[in-house]
């Protein structure tokens, strides 16, 4: 597990009110093993590349919707941690890799045990011992809330059904309502 420098940890714990959520999950006693995110299949999307993360173990996927490769592309990374505490520690590490002060915890949405997002275009959440990061990486920015929700439901299915739960997902990310800043940065 990568370390977080003390000063940065102090900032993150205060900024994201870590005490309110760290270690809390209804699924603390049922960690998922061998989630096999490499089998994740999103209907209508082609897998461009897959890589493995090692610490904690995980799988990253670059998915594209069309052959026009620079248009609609998404990246999904799924980490499988030892337990809920380790997942929340890694979620904090993920927040450490985000420059913006604009992301906030979403307490309304039911995605994950704990979810942080920027509008409809960046999601990082933890469910049980799993951490999921969903982002746009193509120039055509997509709303990915439904995708994040579907990924979370797949984790929930896995929690309920065990390894036989399918990771075949059906969801169609739609163009995001880009903010002024996002629109400008893409021109």
């Amino acid at each position, binding site marked *: 597990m990568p370390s977080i420098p003390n000063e940065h940890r102090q*900032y993150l714990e205060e900024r994201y009110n870590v005490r309110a959520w760290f270690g809390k999950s209804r699924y603390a006693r049922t960690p998922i093993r061998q989630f096999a995110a490499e089998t994740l299949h999103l209907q209508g999307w082609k897998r461009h590349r897959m890589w493995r993360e090692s610490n904690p173990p995980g799988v990253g996927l670059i998915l594209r919707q069309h052959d026009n490769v620079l248009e609609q592309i998404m*990246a999904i990374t799924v980490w499988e941690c030892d337990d809920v505490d380790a997942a929340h520690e890694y979620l904090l590490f993920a927040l450490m890799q985000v420059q913006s*002060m604009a992301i906030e915890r979403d307490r309304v949405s039911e995605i994950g045990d704990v979810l942080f997002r920027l509008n409809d275009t960046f999601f990082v959440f933890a469910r049980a011992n799993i951490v999921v990061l969903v982002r746009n990486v193509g120039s055509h920015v997509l709303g990915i809330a439904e995708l994040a929700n579907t990924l979370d439901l797949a984790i929930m299915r896995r929690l309920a059904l065990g390894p036989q739960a399918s990771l075949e997902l059906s969801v169609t990310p739609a163009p995001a309502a880009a903010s002024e800043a996002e629109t400008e940065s893409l021109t």
Partner: protein
Amino acid sequence: MIALDAVKFNLETVVAGGSLNVRKNATEPIALPEWRRGGSVNFEDSVAAFALAGLEHATMHIAASFSSDEGTLRTAEIRAVDNLIAPPPLVRSRVTSILQRVSTANTEVPVSVRERNVPFHNGATGMVRFELSDPKIDRTRVGLYDCEWQWQYRVPGDPVWRRFAISRHRIYVTLDIPSAPWKQMPYESENTQLLWTDVLDYACSWAAGAQNTVEAATAITKRVNDLAPHLITFDAPGAGSAHYAWSNFDCSAFLERLAGGIGNGMYVNATDCATIVSTFANAIGCDLWQSRMGYGFSTNPAMTIGSKIWQKPALWPGFSYHEVAWENSCSEDDRVYDASMTIDGGLDPTQPPHTAISAAGLPFGHATGHGEISFRTRLAAPAGLYPCQAQPQTRTRRVVI
């Protein structure tokens, strides 16, 4: 008839002299000798790197091996001349065999590999050391050179040089041996941290002409910033998250992106830019780190990479942290190189009119440095100056994968 069998550049695979131990990328090592008859056709098929600091006033050497089907040949004088700057004129003849063999007696052609006597034993020479004197290679600056050599020989008693082979090579000239994450040892195919020539292709080109590390790092910072908006742009939709340098540096994906592929996508943040700049600069002998400042500070208007509009980055309230390529101990007095944004170098960076300057080679600066052109006073809004502190304990050089 003489044949050129092999050319070897990296004569000392220990860290000595000016030649560097290189590999092509994460998956492809480079075997020695670099040029082999039949297997090396294009420039990129035979690559070698030299560090200026290791050369100083020393002579650059290569080695080559030859064979002859004339068993009686005892010795020959052999050299190579530049075949691109001033190709020796062909001597036209209706007799093909003469056309192939006759070169020129002109000794004024630029000599790339200085002539020497080469003894033959049973039609072979083994590896023979030559002095490299290619006039095209500037031994004072960073550069990348494609050299095409015409190999010539002459036998005792015959003043005419006769050509017998062409070889092509790509030579990288760096300032010094690479800094971490790049390594020079152990020189083994499993060592993926040996210097990558796929990185030198860009680093030596971007910093071409640089004579010192500040010039090289500054040039690389500007060229990385210039990759926007077509190849990379600031990650406004993704909250400014790292895409290439999440923990290690996915340099393979970034090279794929540079070549026009998808890589890890078009978005980068400051961590990505700091890692790209420092890793590429360190490949040619700079000594930079990736290090952070923060935490939680408001910013002045700036132009994030890929943007042409002065505004607070992505209209966010501020940065949780920022990261740059940084010299020495990554403290207030050390210089920073930031390709992720263009900052205001004018009298008052808080408001228009804005004067764009590259954030390359500026000292980081102190919170009380009002009016000075330091990176800190340009980046952080007045209210953000204090929380925008150097965090040298975050200093790192991410491993390349």
